[in-house]
């Protein structure tokens, strides 16, 4: 468990910008982003069930998906689709007797690096250290 890394799928229109912002905020912020591998996506609507499961299968300790707030998606409904697909992945994990907390979807604007850091830290604690809130 420990020592494994978390994949973060970031929408380039919002969360990715917030990530860049956060990563440039100095050593404390950098520490909170440790162990997380960012991946840029055109939209959270690009995420598919199989993609998330493959990441877990290939060794990701968890998959965090971050994108634009609802009703603010550049592609209009991409984040709504993401919401349904992530719900479906989590249900598949539960059905297989696995931990659905390994996958999480959240929404934030490009200016909200603060929220990104909080979520990232929370998710890492949850996935790598079993700390659930």
């Amino acid at each position, binding site marked *: 468990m420990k020592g494994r890394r978390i994949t973060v799928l970031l929408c380039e229109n919002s969360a990715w910008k917030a990530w860049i912002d956060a990563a440039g905020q100095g050593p404390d912020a950098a520490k909170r982003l440790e162990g997380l591998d960012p991946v840029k996506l055109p939209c959270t609507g690009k995420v598919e069930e*199989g993609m998330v*499961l*493959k990441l*877990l*299968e290939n060794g990701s300790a968890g998959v965090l998906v971050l994108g634009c707030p609802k009703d603010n998606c550049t592609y209009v409904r991409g984040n709504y689709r993401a919401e349904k697909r992530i719900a479906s992945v989590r249900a*598949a*994990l539960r059905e*297989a*007797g696995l931990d659905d907390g390994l996958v999480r979807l959240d929404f934030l604007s490009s200016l909200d690096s603060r929220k990104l850091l909080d979520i990232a830290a929370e998710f890492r604690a949850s996935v790598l250290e079993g700390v659930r809130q």
Partner: protein
Amino acid sequence: MITAVRKPFAEIAGMLEGSRKVLILGCGTCVTVCMAGGEKEVGILASTLRLANEKEGRRMDIVEATIERQCDREFFDTVRDKVAEADVVLSLACGVGVQFFGEVFPEKPVLPGLDTKFYGAAIAQGVWAERCSGCGTCVIADFGGVCPVTRCSKSLLNGPCGGSQKGKCEVDPVNIDCGWQLIYDRLKALGQLAKLEAVRPIKDWSSGSHGGPGKIVKEDAVL
């Protein structure tokens, strides 16, 4: 298309218990369209199984493959080697494909990964509904193109029954439209309501599955 839904994970895992080398074989036609057993679904199932196996400490090699369809012999040729290497094949084809696999590879255990449901159409993205029962003698010309055998829960040919309410069937007023309301509305729109005035005689059910498993021979196509 033939529609199906994937069996619950627990049922599949139960069927595969004790197997060491599993080939999950998808089908690229009907079940891809209704998103139950195509290449994507094979991938999802395979990943989920591997994750579950890892957690439980079960050793199982899972190979994934999808062929065009499993109801024509030729398409199996592309996966003969994978089939040979597997202990068991979990077919994500409809019931036809699963059985046909067994006829083409009689010595290889094959399991069904889907529950086959009905002949249907996509009435909206992600929603499929039944339209045909394969009764063997199509009469929808007399009913404005709406099938009374399939769309009426009681297959009435002189419907509706007393349970038709506000265009819905009493068997499931949320999900099932009254087939006879549909027939009535359609014939009315076509100006053909008179078609409903004659008493329609009892159906010959023997042309469908009530006559036993069917078979079609097209002589000019037989080699």
